[in-house]
């Protein structure tokens, strides 16, 4: 198992769907660290960890972390300036 590389935002597709109640990987989000705006599907997801760590595809800053805790999932919003929801 090699975690030097990451997965794409698809890997958190169902997490995002649970959070926002709809398909989100095609929705744009803004990184608070570098200001880059990209679809969430482009984010870099590190899943081989005690949680899923989602990083900006442009600057690598952690934008979101999801940790499975005993009674569910804890989501920490880090450098996520905004997310666009579709109509």
């Amino acid at each position: 198992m090699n975690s030097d590389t990451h997965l794409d935002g698809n890997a958190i597709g169902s997490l995002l769907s649970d959070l926002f109640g709809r398909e989100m990987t095609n929705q744009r989000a803004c990184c608070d660290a570098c200001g880059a705006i990209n679809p969430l599907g482009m984010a870099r997801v590190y899943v081989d960890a005690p949680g899923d760590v989602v990083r900006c595809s442009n600057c690598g800053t952690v934008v979101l972390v999801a940790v499975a805790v005993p009674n569910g999932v804890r989501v920490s919003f880090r450098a996520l300036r905004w997310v666009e929801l579709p109509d």
Partner: protein
Amino acid sequence: MERAAVRGRLNWLEAEVVELVQEAPRVKTIVFEVPGWIGHLPGQHVDIRLTAEDGYQAQRSYSIANANGSKRVALTVEAVENGEVSPYLVSELVVGDRIELRGPIGGYFVWEPSKGGPLQLIAGGSGLVPLMAMVRSQTGVSAATPTRLLASARSWEELIYRDELEKSSVDLGSFEVVYTLTRSQPPGWTGYSRRIDQDLLGDSTWPIEDKPLTFICGPTGFVETAAAIMLELGHQPGRIKTERFGPSGG
């Protein structure tokens, strides 16, 4: 795209195995009947969940292999050595067995004819699965989108959907398939026999003037190499979409 926008949480659905197709030595297509399935778009995937009698659960994601049109979801699964879930799916499941499944998931790595083209598909091993759904979505469509597929596999025997790809390259209006077999080749093979590199992609993919929509899927290393080469060839980053499988499905 609106069809696949899920309102509310994704629920686990019961899926029953209705058909099994051996695609290659360690690869099988499993067709599930899923009551309550809302439909899907080519490129999307599902999560499946298995529960053992002692309550132990394992969950994995698999790309959907069939184009939409029914309550059926087909997954093409490669059994990973020492894997926990994939060997079970490939070697154990029989018609009538039931597992849990939820989806469809993903809106970013999705293509349908209305998105236009030309379409460039680049597949590494079982990365061909979601791209095949994109190819299959074009059968029966009056004006198919010009499509080129580059499929990398270890050998001819391990290449999945072979016969169907050969047939599609004949039946579909503008569909070209190029293979590269990286470990062994059949006698008389005149095609590519190496890992992808700039020359190989440059010669077999749509030129940059055609501004293709490119979808790349496969193991992480393959996807990174292919994406880097496409950028180097001059393709626009915004028209390249990737789906990394990770080191193994397990």
